[in-house]
């Protein structure tokens, strides 16, 4: 009688957890890709931890605080490592709806990943999309700051060059003026001396 009951229970469990069963999810781990030489072996203890993490995630959903580790069923473990899991209700006859399990896993994805030293790519829950990290957008884009700095430097340098050019031109213009007025003075004195010498019959002009 007991044997019959045992077989019945395992049969029901087997029915509940099957590949492509209703509300079942496939999980895929890539331990060697993630950890290389430090990859641990996937054994029943790791499976226990996994069941514990799923049960933990379900317990954080309102109305599901009574989920136990024994309610999480794993099956079809392959060498990959990949397996299917379902979460049953306390009566162990029905599986919890996929939507609830999905949202629970999504909320706690980070904790589950960290428990196994994996990330979203190496611990995959098929059919449970992970929320991608939003890009960190600073309030002022960095490029504008750098642009502003370079722009100001160029403007300042241009202004300096233009102003120094103007100043140089004014200085050389005033120098020229001084030279011209100096020449005029010497010319007038020359003219005065010529008048006196010219009246004495010197050639009139070779100016």
């Amino acid at each position, binding site marked *: 009688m007991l044997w019959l009951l045992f077989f019945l229970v395992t049969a029901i469990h087997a029915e509940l957890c099957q590949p492509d069963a209703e509300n079942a999810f496939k999980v895929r781990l890539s331990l060697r890709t993630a950890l290389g030489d430090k990859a641990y072996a996937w054994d029943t203890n790791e499976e226990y931890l996994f069941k514990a993490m799923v049960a933990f995630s379900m317990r954080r959903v309102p109305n599901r605080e009574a989920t136990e580790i024994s309610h999480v069923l794993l099956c079809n473990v392959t060498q990959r490592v990949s397996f299917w899991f379902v979460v049953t209700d306390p009566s162990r006859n029905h599986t919890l709806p996929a939507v609830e399990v999905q949202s629970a896993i999504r909320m706690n994805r980070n904790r589950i990943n960290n428990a196994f030293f994996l990330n979203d790519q190496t611990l995959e829950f098929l059919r449970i999309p992970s929320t991608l990290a939003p890009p960190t957008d600073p309030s002022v884009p960095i490029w504008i700051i750098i642009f502003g700095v370079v722009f100001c430097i*160029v403007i300042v340098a241009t202004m300096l060059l233009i102003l120094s050019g103007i100043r140089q031109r004014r200085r050389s213009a005033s120098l020229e003026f001084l030279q011209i007025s100096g020449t005029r003075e010497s010319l007038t004195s020359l003219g005065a001396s010529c008048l006196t010498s010219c009246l004495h019959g010197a050639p009139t002009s070779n100016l």
Partner: protein
Amino acid sequence: MDEARPLWATPLQFVFACISYAVGLGNVWRFPYLCQMYGGGSFLVPYIIMLAVEGMPLLYLELAVGQRMRQGSIGAWRTISPYLSGVGVASVVVSFFLSMYYNVINAWAFWYLFHSFQDPLPWSVCPLNGNRTGYDEECEKASSTQYFWYRKTLNISPSIQESGAVQWEPALCLILAWLLVYLCILRGTESTGKVVYFTALLPYCVLMIYLVRGLTLHGATNGLAYMFTPKMEQLANPKAWINAATQIFFSLGLGFGSLIAFASYNEPSNDCQKHTVIVSIINSSTSIFASVVTFSIYGFKATFNYESCLNKVILLLTNSFDLEDGFLTVSNLEEVKSYLASAYPSKYSEVFPQIKNCSLESELETAVQGTGLAFIVYTEAIKNMEVSQLWSVLYFFMLLMLGIGSMLGNTAAILTPLTDSKVISSYLPKEAISGLVCLVNCAIGLVFTMEAGNYWFDIFNDYAATLSLLLIVLVETVAVCYLYGLRRFESDLKAMTGHALNWYWKAMWGGVSPLLIISLFVFYLSDYIITGTLQYQAWDASQIPTVRKQL
């Protein structure tokens, strides 16, 4: 004639000015492409022959004319013959066209440079889509670097008819680029002479650093082997020779009047023959040097993509057949595939269409030139290097130096005739003329910052200068040899520099170079006529990758 014509402080400044003008973006993004398309190592044969036969003689001619006439292009050609002032005007107009669109490249270089100070680099990751479950659709279909170029930088419209609005970000960068150019040309040779030390030397520093880094990258040797393996049959391809001649011609920047302008600020006794040889050899060696760097980067990128492709296939097979993680490696991939095909035929045939055929050759064969090479391929390689921010900053700084160096030559070609003209320079000081030219160019250049701006850029790049320059240089050569008289020019040069003119230059100027230019001209003219409706590459978000549309 002009008492106080400004001079270069040392002949070294003149050499650096010519180098920084000639060594430009074409050396980095056009020559490697040509090398790849026309037989790798064997392309060097037509290239060097054309350098000796066409490049050096024409360069010497322009420098000699400038140094002898001591005026910008308009004045110089008017002195040779009053009927030829049109040649000078043509040079100025072509330079004007070039400076209009060329500075947009500097604006883009600034944009990428400013964006390089972030972690992660903005072109290395796709932005998320609306509900944060995946990446933006356009970015998924293309790659993140293409998305950043076409969507974030250009915000390109699907066709040239849809002009869109002026994008303020590239417009700001364009204004900055023109301000920088104005700063450098403000005082004429006094300021330009100092700037060219940087614009000529810094690109070489960066190229050296990149050479060392590039050669140590994983997979660089694949690219180098691919490039330098000579494909001798390409020597029989006339297109290889035509492209070699064209590349030498445009790479040296002949016909714009910039070389005449630079040489007009020389001492009359300057030995421009020696400088010709130096500048042309440095220009060509830089092209080869840059293509070594480019091909090691290509090799790295191709190897990286090839290995990612293989890893994707491995992951696909591992997941489909639930094999042990790490069991499938690159080395046993083929035998495991055949084993799986025989052991699980039905399942394998399901998976088979998704298995891509990864090939290193096809990755290497994607030959790219122009802005696509500089802003898409290089950035893709840079994002996979360690400390990518540093490499990115160095690279775009180098692009900026190369671009600004060429811009200095272009603006000199426009400004020297203007400042030489008595009419204009009596009304306005030098600074005002430069400012006015920069302002007008900047205003017109804003067209290239519109959404369809890149299509206009491509059109200008392909068609603005080609035929005009060939015609200008042809008329120049014929004018000096036959109108002015080769003997007269020879005696002028001898009086000026003190050296006799070598027979080689006379032979080239008189016969070979004009014939070459005529044949190039005829080829391009017939090419345009035969092609019929002109086409351009468009980026349509609904049809990725690029699609050819008609003008």
